[in-house]
C-alpha cells in the first residue's frame, strides 16, 4: 500500500535554562497507509501534538525525515498543504466572527468555491447556526467548526487532534460515522484521541507514542493480539479437578493462575491444545474462552500509565522504551 504519511527518526528537543533539556520527540517513527483511519495514541505530554505540529510546519524538528503524500517535508509542504486538512489541539477561532465568516475567509484564502462552505457546514451539522458568532458556541460546536475547517479543502489526508473533545454522545457517534464515510470515500484520516473505545471501533491501524518514541504500531487487531498474551479462561466440570489441571498445564509450559472456580492461562498459542492436554488426563473442560484485551489495557500497559492506588502519576511519568514492539 502507498504511504500517505511517513515519519522516520523524528527528533525535537526543547532546551530551557530552568528545566534543562527535554526530548519531546526522541527518534519517533510513524507510517500511515492510504485510505486508512489511523489512530494516534499517547498519554498527555507524550509528543502527539508536537508530532502533528512538526508535520504541519508549525514546529521545526531537530532531526529526522517526514513525508506527506509522497513528498518530502518541509520543502514540499506548500505544495501538499492544499491536500491536507488538519485541526491541531483545541479548536481556536476569532470569537467575533460567525462560523460562515470564519470558513468563508479560509475558503477565500485557499481559493475554494464559496459553496464548499455550505457543504461542510451541512456535513458537521452547523448549517442552522452558521450565522452566529463563534464566541456563543459550545465547545462541541467549536469542535464541529474545526472539523469543518479541516474538511473545507476536501483533503486527501485529514489530521484531527481530539475531534470528539466536547462532543455529546450523539455528536461522537456522528463523528465516528463521518470518519468512516470519509475513509470509505478514499480519504486517509489520522485521528488523535484519548477515547480509546472510539479508536478501537473506527480505526484500521494505530500508532502508540510514549515519551516521544513509538511503542506500538500496526493494524488494531494485530496490536491487540500481540498484547493479549494468549490469555485463556478455563472451567472444568468438577471444580475439585482444578489443582490437577493446573499441574498438568504447568508441566506443559503454560503459565497458570488458579482462581476460585476457574484457571487463567497465559501464553497459550492454540486453545485446542489445552483441551487435548486435559482430556488426556480425564479432565473435561466446560468452558474454554480466549480472554480478549482492549485497546485501553494495551495502551495503559505500553505507556505504563495505569493508575496505581495511592499514587499520583505526573505528566511525563511514563514508560521508557528501548525499541518498543514493532519498532
Amino acid at each position: 500500500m502507498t504511504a500517505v504519511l511517513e515519519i522516520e527518526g523524528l527528533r525535537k528537543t526543547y532546551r530551557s535554562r530552568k528545566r534543562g533539556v527535554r526530548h519531546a520527540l526522541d527518534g519517533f517513527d510513524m507510517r500511515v497507509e492510504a485510505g486508512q483511519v489511523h489512530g494516534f495514541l499517547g498519554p498527555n505530554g507524550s509528543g502527539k501534538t508536537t508530532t502533528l505540529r512538526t508535520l504541519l510546519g508549525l514546529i521545526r524538528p531537530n532531526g529526522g525525515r517526514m513525508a506527506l503524500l509522497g513528498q518530502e517535508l518541509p520543502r514540499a509542504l506548500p505544495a501538499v498543504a492544499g491536500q491536507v486538512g488538519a485541526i491541531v489541539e483545541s479548536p481556536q477561532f476569532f470569537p467575533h466572527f460567525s462560523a460562515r465568516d470564519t470558513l468563508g475567509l479560509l475558503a477565500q484564502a485557499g481559493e475554494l468555491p464559496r459553496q464548499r462552505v455550505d457543504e461542510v457546514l451541512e456535513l458537521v451539522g452547523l448549517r442552522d447556526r452558521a450565522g452566529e458568532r463563534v464566541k456563543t458556541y459550545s465547545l462541541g460546536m467549536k469542535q464541529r467548526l474545526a472539523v469543518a475547517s479541516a474538511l473545507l479543502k476536501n483533503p486527501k489526508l485529514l489530521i484531527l487532534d481530539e475531534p470528539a473533545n466536547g462532543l455529546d454522545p450523539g455528536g461522537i457517534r456522528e463523528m465516528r460515522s463521518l470518519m468512516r464515510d470519509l475513509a470509505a470515500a478514499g480519504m486517509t484520516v489520522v485521528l488523535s484521541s484519548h477515547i480509546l473505545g472510539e479508536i478501537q471501533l473506527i480505526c484500521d491501524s494505530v500508532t502508540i507514542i510514549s515519551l516521544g518514541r513509538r511503542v506500538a504500531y500496526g493494524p488494531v487487531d494485530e496490536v491487540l493480539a500481540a498484547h493479549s498474551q494468549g490469555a485463556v479462561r478455563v472451567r472444568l466440570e468438577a471444580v475439585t479437578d482444578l489443582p490437577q489441571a493446573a499441574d498438568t498445564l504447568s508441566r506443559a509450559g503454560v503459565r497458570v493462575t488458579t482462581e476460585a472456580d476457574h484457571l487463567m492461562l497465559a501464553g497459550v498459542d492454540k486453545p485446542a491444545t489445552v483441551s487435548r492436554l486435559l482430556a488426556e488426563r480425564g479432565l473435561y473442560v466446560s468452558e474454554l474462552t480466549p480472554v480478549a484485551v482492549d485497546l485501553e489495557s494495551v495502551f495503559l500497559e505500553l505507556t505504563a500509565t495505569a493508575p496505581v492506588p495511592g499514587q499520583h502519576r505526573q505528566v511525563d511519568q511514563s514508560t521508557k522504551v528501548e525499541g518498543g514492539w514493532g519498532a
Partner: protein
Amino acid sequence: MSLFVTELRRLAKRRVTRLLLVLLVLGLAGVATAFSFSSHKLSKEVVAAAQVEADHQYRQAVKDWERTVADCDAAKARGEATEERFGPNCGRDWQPQPEMFDPKWNLPYQFDFRAEFPTFIAVFAGAVALFAFIVGASFVGAEWSTGGMMNLLLWRPKRLAVLGTKMAALLTTVLGVTVVLGAFWTLAFWLIGRYRGTTVKVTAGVWRSIGLDGLRAVGIVLAIGAIAFALASLGRHTAMALGAAVAVFAISEIGIRIAVGVLSIPFGDRYVLSTYAQAWFMKQVKLFDYDACQFAKGQCEPAELLVTWQDSALVFGLGAAVVLVAAFWAMRKRDIA
C-alpha cells in the same frame, strides 16, 4: 492575491477596525465642526466696527490719561507726594498713542487656512496614527492569541509570505483611510477658511507645501501602523505593542528627560522622541543650550542645535526597520505552539 484580498476582508470585518474607524470619523468631524463655529469671517463691517472700537478705546485712554495728569498736578499743588502714585512727571511721558490700540484686538478669531492648516495636518496625523497603532497591533495580535494565525498557516504554510501579506493588507487599509479622510479633512478646513475664515494667499506653492506636509503625515501614520503590527507579532499579543508604546513613552519622555536633567547633558531634548515627532511636522526644531550662558557677563546668545525632519526620518525609519526585521526574523525562526 487571494490571501491579500482575504486579509483586507478580514481586517474590514473586524469589530475593532469598524469601531475605531467610526470613532475616528466622529472625532475628526467633531473637531472640524467645533472649529467652524469658533472662526468668524472678517467682513468689512466687522473690520470697520473693530476700528471704531479701537478709536473709541484710544480716545477713552487719552481722556483717562489727561484726567490722571490733571489729578497729579492738583495733588502736587496741594503739596502731596505724587511720584509714587502717578509716576515721574505725573505720567506725562505715558501718553497713549493710537498704534497702541490695534483694531485686530477687537476682531473675532478668523481661521487662516494658509498659516494654520499645517498645524491641523499634524492633529489629523496624530489621530490617524493612533487608529493605525491600535488596529495594526490588534489585527495581528488577536490573530496570534486566538489561534487564527496557526489556522492560516495550516492553509498557507509560508510564514513570511503570510505575515508580509497581512502587513500589506493593514498598510493598504491604513493608507486608504488616511488618504480618504485626509482629503475630507483638507476640504473641511478649506471650506472653513473659505466661508468662516480666510483662504487668501493660498498659492500653488502653498498647496505644494501642504501636499508635502500631507506626505509626511502619511509616512508617520504608516510607520506607526507597521511598528505596532511588528511589535504585536513579535510578542504574539496585542498587549505587547500597547505595553511597548507605554514603555517607550515613559522611558523617552520621562526617564530620559530626568536623566539628561540630572547629568546636565547639553541639548538633552535631542534624545527625546517627541522632539523628532515635532521636527517631522514642523520641518525643524531648534534646541538651545541655556546652561552654556554666563549671564553675569551680560546678554547671552545660547548655543543652538537644529533637529530637522530628515533627522526624524532617520530615527523613525531605523526604529521601524529594527522592529520589522525582528518580527519577520521571529516569524521565520520561532516555533508556533
